[in-house]
């Protein structure tokens, strides 16, 4: 018989897997690399994250100072929808951030240990390699141009370049210290 702890652990693990899947879709654009765009996989994963979020009963624990401000910002964008000159464009801006919320809140709840943060980091590193490779190859007419078409991909590169570099470096330093017996 499964104990509540094991059940909770499995539940959280599945939730975390969907979080990774969201990253693969949003930043990795897997739906553009493989012919699965018609499955609306991004929408499906977002819905699953919402279900996990409400089903877990831990939504309140994701509400902290910064997340409150993010929610206020989204709320502010929603106020403009009926009053803006172009309501549809205002709605698109609101929808973009609103649809990000399930991922953002799930991340705050789930990424609660160094090991999980490192997993996220490694996923980012892998995505960066794929994206970097695609950009380099597509300028030579070889890649799928998934990333080079997204002109803003370099911003993503800039954001994660040092994130994973330092995390891996920091980890290597610790491993070296452990190896030489310097770490207690």
């Amino acid at each position, binding site marked *: 018989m499964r104990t509540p702890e094991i059940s909770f652990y499995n539940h959280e693990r599945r939730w975390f897997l969907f979080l990774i899947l969201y990253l693969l879709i949003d930043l990795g654009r897997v739906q553009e690399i493989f012919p699965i765009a018609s499955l609306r996989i991004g929408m499906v994963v977002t819905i699953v994250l919402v279900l996990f979020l409400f089903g877990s009963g831990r939504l309140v624990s994701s509400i902290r100072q910064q997340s409150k401000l993010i929610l*206020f910002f989204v709320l502010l964008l929603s106020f403009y929808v009926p009053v803006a000159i172009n309501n549809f464009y205002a709605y698109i801006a609101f929808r973009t951030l609103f649809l990000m919320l399930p991922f953002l809140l799930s991340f705050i709840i789930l990424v609660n240990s160094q090991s999980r*943060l490192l997993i996220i980091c490694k996923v980012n590193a892998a995505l960066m390699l794929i994206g970097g490779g695609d*950009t380099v190859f597509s300028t030579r007419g070889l890649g799928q141009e998934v990333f080079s078409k997204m002109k803003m991909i370099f911003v993503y590169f800039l954001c994660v370049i040092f994130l994973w570099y*330092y995390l891996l470096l920091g980890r290597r330093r610790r491993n070296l210290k452990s190896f030489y017996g310097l770490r207690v």
Partner: protein
Amino acid sequence: MILTIVAVVLTKSRGGFVGLCAMGAVYWWFNKKKIALMISVFLIAVIMLLVGGESYKQDMRTITETQVNTAKVRLLSWEAGWRMFLDNPLGVGGNNFPILFPKYQPSEMTRNMWGRVAHSLWFTLIPETGVFGILIYFLLIRMNFKDLTYLSRLEDDGFFSSLTIALFASFAGFFGAATFISVLYYPYFWYLTIVVMSAREISVTHAANHIET
């Protein structure tokens, strides 16, 4: 990392170049081995010139030349954004800068520029979300940096100090590039914010476990 830098160069974006420089500056600030870093920067610059070629050099040179057409038009767009904000201090609404642009475009722009984006995160934020948006966004930045300062002061085995430098550099890269492109509604800033939040929480748990043991 080299592959990524090459990819940034290949996009031939001036914003990307500024972002790289900003990240380099943060890296320099935190790094103790400054001579080794100088050699690395030199090698990276050589790679950038080899990959980008003469056209890349020409493009990057225009960053400081405000009379060159694209740079000048960008400055004029920012001026229009500022006037749009003064007229609408509560904001014109998300993605509405391009709609209202013709009303505020300077006389130097002869043809109707309907649909032109601000080409800057700041000049998207200021006119589109007004004083409340500015307040929220800057409060978020302040909190992120407060958390990062807290993390940088932690005495640990290198995890949090490495992460802090990484995040400082990431923010520098993002804001450096974002000053020249409209990325307010792109996910990167929000993603970095949640990484900071999670790191802070993990550090608190880590410290509590450390005390218990």
